[in-house]
Each structure stands twice: as structure tokens, then as C-alpha cells.
């Protein structure tokens, strides 16, 4: 009663104080009258004794202070009561409380992690000032097809455009760098030209960008990345001297770790700008970045650049990549590869969140329906409906708050770990770090979903007006229906997630089992850049060097075959134009490889017809070439390629008059030269390294092991290093090399697969708990059936059928949804269709299987039920 009074309006309370004072004054006046005061005197004296208006005001104020304090402590005691009840319930139901906490924690962690990634990589502006003015410039071919690569000569002309404030080029070029310790190391480096730094306005930790003069002549200067500078150069004072190859280079600046572009670059070396005409314009092997002038639209810039491109084509008809200039916002260019995987991950995390919400709701509905009686009793005792709902929510808020703290903590750890320990296969990975806002967003979204799922059962418990049997049963049945619907919903989402994860996994495996046209297992490569002074200009010493390396490697026990090739990696393979005899213009390109020794045997590339290179071929004999079947079919379909002649334009000279004719002596098997992930099998040509040693500057020894590649990995490196101790040698397994471009695919597969596993686990927990709970409710019915002669098998069958019904409905709807949303996956799959029937069928089947497993315990429980006991207790 008192509490209720206190909750009334403040005016009411104020009236009460006044009434109390009035009563006092009346009683005092009455007594004074008894002592002989006149009524007027008595009233005046009573007021005087009370301290007059001042005294009355003071009492009103003290009453107001009291009311404020009591209302507050009332609220506190309500909260305390709610918390005590919530804790008591948590202790009484430790499993379901722990389950709720675990599920919500997981959801917060996943959401925080993915939101952080999406925010850092996709949403934030690039870490450069006024980054919205940065664009990437692309070449455009005759068909209007755009390529992200440009030729230096074309770019040099574009660079004069008024629309462009500054622009520069960059190209990956791993280098052998020698620091203070005199040990040459290969590092991830980029060649840059033009105004690369000034266009980006790359923020530096110290030092400076190269000056215009240094840029123009390509002075021997370089910039390094912050962590490289700290760990490898011991934060040396600038300018610091290092050796790239055996050339001294001044390091003049240090780029901040979070603003280093491209991601993973350790060093940028300035190269001179060279303008060339004719087919040189077709060597598109740079990326271009430009900063548009303030207020210049991409449309205006494109119009001007297209005009320049047209002028180039007019003066230089050989320029085939000058049919315009493509302009792409630089942020899109940087994050392009990561966009769809990250959005997929975000969608996956949201899917897990929904499953988690449905799961918590289903758990709560089951719990709450079991407590229908409790709610009704408390209501009958006078607890208001709002109070009951608030009470119910307090417990969930407690769990949600704990989940938020734990989840953000786990996300922080995960992000810290993935940034520091794992090389995230993502652009802008240097900028990734835990974001408090992402954490709060994650926690808020999970909190809302958690609250919504908690509201559902709260409505149930507080709804039931009477605690007696029939009404409670009706409410319970309604709870069961809602719980079953939630479980179906969980299964639907689990199927969608699992089919996405399954498609990625199957795609990954399919891609890895693709026939490459060579056998990467057992192959070790040792790549070397012959950058020393002795090898740079003279041509002959290179072949001597490679011959020596090959001799040494071939002698290693366990090496079955060894050869050399100008490049060992699958990416960065030069792709040059081919002109077949009889053609006037080159009609396409081919992978160009200079090889020597037993390269074909080492790689496992079969000879189809003709002969391989042999001892009869040498530096002074006629130029010979091996072509792949794909190349042979393209130029001489239906005929033998043997004896035909081709020119390797752009690789061996830009004009038809410069490049020598190469005679085809053999046809070899085609290979997937661009790696597992590439759909296209490109035409390939192999020339003899001895006949064109200019290409053997950066090359590799390729060795095949008789058994395990790991047996020869160390020895190959040692022998190659022994040829010349001053050179950095990088030994790798070919299998690892080929897997590298798949790293992002693999990471996405792992993460989405993980999400799917979580969703499936949650769904199976949902099926388990709803069935088990239902059996509790149907105890009477089951007992009756058993008493009427239903066998244990019948009861087991009944429960299993029920589980299959739930899972089957969910799986069907889920498969439909998976097919409808499959388009999201398309860009992330290399070999499979997103609606791959095998994946979908396997997913649905595994969900049904899981449903049966989850239902087995409740089913056995039903079968073991003692009819007498069940009937008595019901």
C-alpha cells in the first residue's frame, strides 16, 4: 500500500504534506484554545510556533527530499529483486542459462569481427588525404574491354592531362635486399614511377617523398614500410643506405604501417619514366593511380583522357590498348577482390545471429511454458504484467550484458591474433584493428535480437491469468507451436549457411583436384635474381651461373629431374604477343617461358609430338621453340605444328623486323599456367634459355623429388646458394606456391564453413530441446499410449517422425532459399555453380541425419517411460 501511494503523482504527495501540517496546526490551536487563547490568537500562535511560512516551506522541502530518496530506493529494490530472481533462476537452470550466454557471446563475437572487417576494408575511406579524388586508370582495348594494367608510355601521355593533379605507376617486383647484416633477403617490394607518392599523398612516419627530379631520372632512392624499417633496419636514421641487388640505394622515407599501399609492400623503389612508341605501348605491366584535380568529375577526366588516347592511336596505330582510358574509384580498385567475400561473411554472421536469436527464443519459450504456473501465481499475488515482463527481461539483460563483454573481448583477441599472427588475405590488412564502435554495434544488434527473443516467452508467462490446469495446458501448447516454428526457422538458416559453406568447400576441393597439365607434388623451386653487378650487363655469365646451379642440384641424392625456367611462380608469368608466319598482325598472346635442363620432366609436362630440346640445340644453332597443344590448335588447327615458325613479339623485340623467327620442334601438353583458380588454359610457348639468356635475370631451378619434396627442399636451397653466396635464394614447394592465390578462398571457406557448423549445431540443439520439452508435456498421452499397448519402438518412431517432420520442412524451405540466394556466392566460386545439386542434396541429407541424432535421446526417453508413473504424475 505504502509503495503504491508513493508511486502516485507528486502533487498528490505534496497535498499529503500540506494535510499533515494542517492537522498539526489544528491540533495545536485547539489545545491553545483550551488554555484560554481566543480562536484567532490560537491559530496565529500555532503558526508562529511552527516557524511561520518559512517553517512550513522547510517541512515541504524535507518531505520532497524524502520522497525522491524513497522512490529511488524503491526502484533499486525492485531491480535488486529482479536480479536476485534472475540469478536464482540461472543457478536453478545452469545449462540453459549457460547455453544462452554461450550462444549470444558467439553471436556478438562473430558480428563484431565481421563488422570490423567490413568497416575497415570496405567502408572507411582509404588512409590518404582527400582519398575520394583518387582513381585507378585502366587500359581499354578495341572491344571496349578494360584492363587494370597500363603501359608506361601511354600513362606518360595521360599524365599531361589537365584533369590530373598527380599520378604514378606501381608494379610488384620482389627484390633481393642486403641490409647491415650482409645477408641478402628477398622482400615484397614494388617498383614505382612518376608521382606515385604525391598522387596518393602517402602519409610518412619520417623522411620525404622523392623529389620531382629524382622521379624523372629514376634516382637510386626508395621508401620502406614502418614495420620493415623498425624490425629489419633497426629504425635507422634517414637517409639510410641499403643494397638492392648490389646497387646502393638511399632510403629516404618511411611509410606508416596503416597507410602502406599496396598492402604487404615492404619497399618501394623509384624507377625512371621512359617514353617509347610503337608496340612498346602494348607492354601493359603497371598499375596506375591518379589524383584528380579538385572539383574534377570522373566524367570530365574521362573525356579528356579518351581524347589523349585517341591521339595516341592516331599517331601510333600499333597501340592496341589505347581505345580509351578506364577510370575506377581507387577505393573500389583496392578492395575489389575482397568485396564479395566480406559481404558473404557479413551475411553469414547475420545468418548465425538469426539462428542464435531463434535458438535463444526457442529455449526461452520451452523454459517459460514450463513456468506458466509460476507466472500465474505471481500474477495472482498482485504482480503487475509490466512488472512480470520487466522481471523476465532483467534476467536476459544480465545475460546479454555478459555476452556483450565476453563477445567483444573474444572478437578483440581474434582480431589481434589475425592481424599479428596470420597474414590476412585481405587488402588494407595493415589498417585492421578492433573497433570499439563495431563492438558496440555488434553488441547492440545482438542485444536487440536477444531481447526480442526474450520478449516472446515473456508475453506467454504474463499472459496466463489463471494458474489452473486447462489454461496452463493451452498456453503450453501455444508455446510448443511457437517453439516448433522457431526450430524450423533455425533449420532453414542452417541449410542456407551449410549449403554456402559446402559449396565453397566442394569448390575448393574441386579446384585443387583440377588437372593442371603438370604435377606440382614433389616439385621444389629455388628462385634467384641475378642482380649482382657481374650479371647485370653481361649475358654469358648468367648461363654459366645457371649451368652451375643445375649441375649442383642434379647431383643431390633424391632429385629425379632438374631444370631451369625464367619464372617458377604461376602468377607474374610474362604473356607476350605471338605472330605466326603468314599473319600480318599478332592475333593474340601466349605465356612465354625460357627453359633449360630437364624442366619438362621436372614439372611433369608431357611431350605430345616432335622432340624436346636436346644437346643439338645451343646458343649458336637455329632458334627453336616448343608450343603447347592449345597454341598449336589456335594457329594450325588440324595440321601438324612441327616445322611451323612464330615470332615472340614484345618478348624478343617489338617489331616484326626485330624479333627472330622460332621454329617449332615439338608440341607439349597444355598447362593451367595461371594456377588452379583460372578457368582459362592459355596458349604457351617455351624457348631455350641458352638461346635467349637475357630472360634469365630472375629465374628458378625446378627440381622433382624421387619421393618426398620435403627431402630435397633444404639441399636444393643450399646447393643453389653455394653457387654465389651473395644472392638471395628463395626455395618453395610448388604446391604451396600454387595454393597462395587460393588463400582468400580458403579463408572464406573456413570462416563460412565455421559459421555453418555453428548454425547446424544450434539447430540441432533447438531440435533436441523442443522435442525433449514436448515429451515432458505429452507424458500423459505417451503413458496412455504405452498402457494401451504401444511398444517402445512405436514411441521411438513417433518422436523420430516428429523430428524428421521439423527438419524436413526446414530443409525444404532452406534449399529453396539457398537456391534463391545462391547468386551471392557466384563470384566466390571458381569451378562450381552456387546451386550445385550435389551440395544442396548433401546439405539437406545431413540436416535430416542430424535431426535424427538430436532426436534419439528424447525418443529413447519416451520409449523408457513407465506408463504407470507417467499417468500418475501427469
Amino acid at each position, binding site marked *: 500500500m505504502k509503495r503504491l501511494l508513493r508511486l502516485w503523482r507528486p502533487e498528490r504527495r505534496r497535498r499529503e504534506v500540506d494535510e499533515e501540517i494542517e492537522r498539526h496546526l489544528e491540533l495545536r490551536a485547539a489545545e491553545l484554545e483550551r488554555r484560554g487563547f481566543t480562536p484567532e490568537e490560537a491559530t496565529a500562535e500555532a503558526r508562529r510556533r*511552527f516557524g511561520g511560512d518559512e517553517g512550513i516551506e522547510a517541512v515541504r522541502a524535507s518531505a520532497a527530499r524524502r520522497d525522491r530518496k524513497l522512490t529511488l530506493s524503491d526502484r533499486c529494490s525492485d531491480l535488486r529483486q529482479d536480479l536476485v530472481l534472475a540469478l536464482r533462476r540461472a543457478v536453478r537452470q545452469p545449462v540453459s542459462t549457460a547455453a544462452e550466454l554461450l550462444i549470444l557471446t558467439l553471436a556478438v563475437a562473430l558480428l563484431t569481427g565481421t563488422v570490423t572487417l567490413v568497416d575497415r576494408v570496405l567502408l572507411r575511406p582509404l588512409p590518404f588525404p582527400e582519398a575520394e579524388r583518387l582513381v585507378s586508370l585502366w587500359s581499354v582495348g578495341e572491344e571496349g574491354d578494360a584492363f587494370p594494367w597500363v603501359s608506361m608510355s601511354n600513362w606518360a601521355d595521360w599524365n599531361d592531362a589537365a584533369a590530373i593533379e598527380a599520378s604514378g605507376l606501381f608494379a610488384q617486383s620482389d627484390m633481393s635486399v642486403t641490409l647491415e647484416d650482409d645477408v641478402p633477403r628477398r622482400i615484397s617490394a614494388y617498383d614505382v614511377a612518376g608521382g606515385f607518392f604525391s598522387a596518393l599523398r602517402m602519409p610518412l612516419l619520417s623522411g620525404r617523398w622523392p623529389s620531382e627530379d629524382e622521379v624523372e631520372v629514376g634516382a637510386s632512392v626508395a621508401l620502406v614500410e614502418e614495420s620493415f624499417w623498425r624490425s629489419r633496419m633497426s629504425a635507422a636514421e634517414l637517409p639510410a643506405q641499403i643494397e638492392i641487388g648490389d646497387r646502393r640505394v638511399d632510403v629516404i622515407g618511411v611509410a606508416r604501417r596503416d597507410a602502406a599501399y599496396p598492402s604487404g609492400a615492404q619497399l618501394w623503389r623509384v624507377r625512371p619514366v621512359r617514353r617509347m612508341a610503337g608496340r612498346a605501348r602494348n607492354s601493359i605491366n603497371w598499375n596506375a593511380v591518379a589524383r584528380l584535380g579538385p572539383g574534377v568529375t570522373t566524367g570530365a577526366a574521362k573525356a579528356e583522357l579518351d581524347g589523349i588516347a585517341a591521339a595516341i592511336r592516331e599517331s601510333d596505330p600499333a597501340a592496341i590498348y589505347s581505345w580509351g582510358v578506364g577510370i575506377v574509384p581507387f577505393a573500389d580498385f583496392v578492395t575489389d577482390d575482397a568485396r564479395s567475400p566480406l559481404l558473404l561473411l557479413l551475411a553469414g554472421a547475420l545468418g548465425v545471429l538469426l539462428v542464435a536469436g531463434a535458438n535463444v527464443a526457442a529455449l526461452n519459450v520451452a523454459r517459460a511454458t514450463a513456468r506458466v504456473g509460476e507466472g500465474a501465481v505471481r500474477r495472482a499475488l498482485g504482480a503487475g504484467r509490466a512488472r512480470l515482463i520487466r522481471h523476465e527481461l532483467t534476467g536476459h539483460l544480465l545475460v546479454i550484458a555478459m555476452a556483450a563483454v565476453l563477445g567483444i573481448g573474444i572478437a578483440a583477441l581474434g582480431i589481434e591474433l589475425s592481424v599479428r599472427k596470420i597474414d590476412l588475405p585481405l587488402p588494407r590488412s595493415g589498417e585492421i584493428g578492433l573497433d570499439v564502435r563495431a563492438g558496440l554495434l555488434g553488441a547492440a544488434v545482438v542485444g536487440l535480437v536477444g531481447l526480442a527473443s526474450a520478449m516472446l516467452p515473456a508475453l506467454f508467462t504474463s499472459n496466463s491469468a489463471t494458474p489452473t490446469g486447462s489454461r496452463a495446458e493451452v498456453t503450453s501448447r501455444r508455446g510448443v507451436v511457437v517453439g516448433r516454428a522457431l526450430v524450423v526457422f533455425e533449420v532453414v538458416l542452417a541449410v542456407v549457411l551449410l549449403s554456402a559453406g559446402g559449396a565453397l568447400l566442394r569448390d575448393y576441393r574441386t579446384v585443387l583436384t583440377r588437372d593442371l597439365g603438370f604435377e606440382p607434388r614433389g616439385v621444389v623451386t629455388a628462385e634467384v635474381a641475378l642482380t649482382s653487378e657481374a650479371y647485370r650487363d653481361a649475358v654469358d655469365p648468367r648461363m654459366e651461373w645457371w649451368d652451375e646451379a643445375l649441375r649442383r642440384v642434379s647431383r643431390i641424392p633424391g632429385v629425379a629431374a632438374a631444370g631451369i625456367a625464367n619464372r617458377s611462380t604461376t602468377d607474374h608469368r610474362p604473356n607476350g604477343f605471338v605472330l605466326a608466319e603468314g599473319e600480318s598482325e599478332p592475333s593474340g598472346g601466349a605465356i612465354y617461358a625460357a627453359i633449360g635442363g630437364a624442366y619438362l620432366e621436372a614439372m611433369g609436362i608431357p611431350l605430345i609430338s616432335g622432340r624436346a630440346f636436346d644437346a643439338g640445340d645451343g646458343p649458336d644453332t637455329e632458334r627453336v621453340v616448343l608450343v603447347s597443344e592449345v597454341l598449336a590448335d589456335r594457329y594450325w588447327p588440324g595440321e601438324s605444328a612441327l616445322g611451323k615458325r612464330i615470332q615472340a613479339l614484345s618478348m624478343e623485340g617489338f617489331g616484326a623486323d626485330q624479333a627472330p623467327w622460332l621454329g617449332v620442334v615439338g608440341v607439349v601438353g597444355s598447362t593451367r599456367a595461371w594456377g588452379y583458380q583460372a578457368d582459362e588454359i592459355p596458349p604457351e610457348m617455351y624457348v631455350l634459355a641458352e638461346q635467349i639468356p637475357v630472360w634469365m635475370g630472375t629465374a628458378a631451378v625446378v627440381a622433382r623429388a624421387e619421393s618426398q619434396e620435403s627431402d630435397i627442399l633444404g639441399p636444393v636451397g643450399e646447393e643453389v646458394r653455394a653457387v654465389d653466396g651473395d644472392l638471395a635464394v628463395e626455395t618453395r614447394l610448388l604446391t604451396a606456391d600454387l595454393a597462395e592465390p587460393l588463400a582468400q578462398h580458403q579463408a572464406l571457406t573456413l570462416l563460412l564453413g565455421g559459421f555453418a557448423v555453428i548454425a547446424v549445431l544450434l539447430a540441432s540443439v533447438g531440435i533436441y530441446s523442443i522435442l525433449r520439452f514436448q515429451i515432458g508435456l505429452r507424458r500423459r498421452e505417451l503413458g496412455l499410449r504405452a498402457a494401451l499397448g504401444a511398444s517402445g519402438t512405436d514411441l521411438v518412431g513417433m518422436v523420430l517422425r516428429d523430428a524428421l517432420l521439423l527438419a524436413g520442412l526446414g530443409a525444404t524451405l532452406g534449399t529453396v532459399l539457398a537456391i534463391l540466394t545462391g547468386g551471392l556466392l557466384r563470384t566466390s566460386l571458381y569451378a562450381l555453380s552456387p546451386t550445385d545439386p550435389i551440395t544442396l542434396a548433401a546439405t539437406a541429407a545431413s540436416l535430416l541425419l542430424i535431426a535424427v541424432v538430436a532426436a534419439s535421446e528424447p525418443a529413447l526417453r519416451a520409449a523408457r517411460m513407465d506408463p504407470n508413473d507417467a499417468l500418475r504424475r501427469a
Partner: protein
Amino acid sequence: MSSDETIPLLKGTLDLLILKCLSMEPMHGYGLTTWLEEQSGERVSPGDSATYQALHRLEADGLVEAEWDTSDNNRRARYYHITPSGRAKLTESEKQWRDYTDIVTRLLDLPGLA
């Protein structure tokens, strides 16, 4: 010092006296002021306003509670009663008070300039 003069109350004493009074029976505010006056032979009078302020203070601290009830002459009045924590507080304050006056008295009893 004349025996008719009212003694000003020491700080905190009013709360103690109110608790003492309410520990005997529930009372309304006016009853409380007259009780204090009568018991002290009108020598202790904290003032009506101060008494109510003290009551509200004690109420806010949960040492007393109040309810509306009908008084002897059938008028509504707000009756105050002591709570369990009020009783505990009374016991504690009473002991403190006695210790305090004992010590002060003993010190004043020491020989010196009287």
C-alpha cells in the same frame, strides 16, 4: 541558569529522542511534539517545523515509516512507527549518548576552577 529557560538541543539529539518516543508507541507528528514538551517539562523544544523535518529525514533513511490512520477524534492523521532498523539505530545511538555524557561528566567532575 533559570529552570524555565528552554535548552537548545545538541545536534543529533532530536533524532535520538524521536526514535525513543516512537519505540514506545506509534504517534502522529503533533503527538510527538507535545510528548517532547511534556516529558521535558517544556524545557526541551526543538520547534514544530524541525520535528517534522527530522521525521522526514528518519523516514527517508528507513528508520521510521508512516501511515495514514484515524486519530482519537476521528480525524485522519499520519502515524509514524519505528522500523526494525530504527530500533537498532536507537540502541546504538543511546549507548553512544550515554558513553558520551559519562565521559563528559567525568571530565567535568575533575577538580579545578569551578
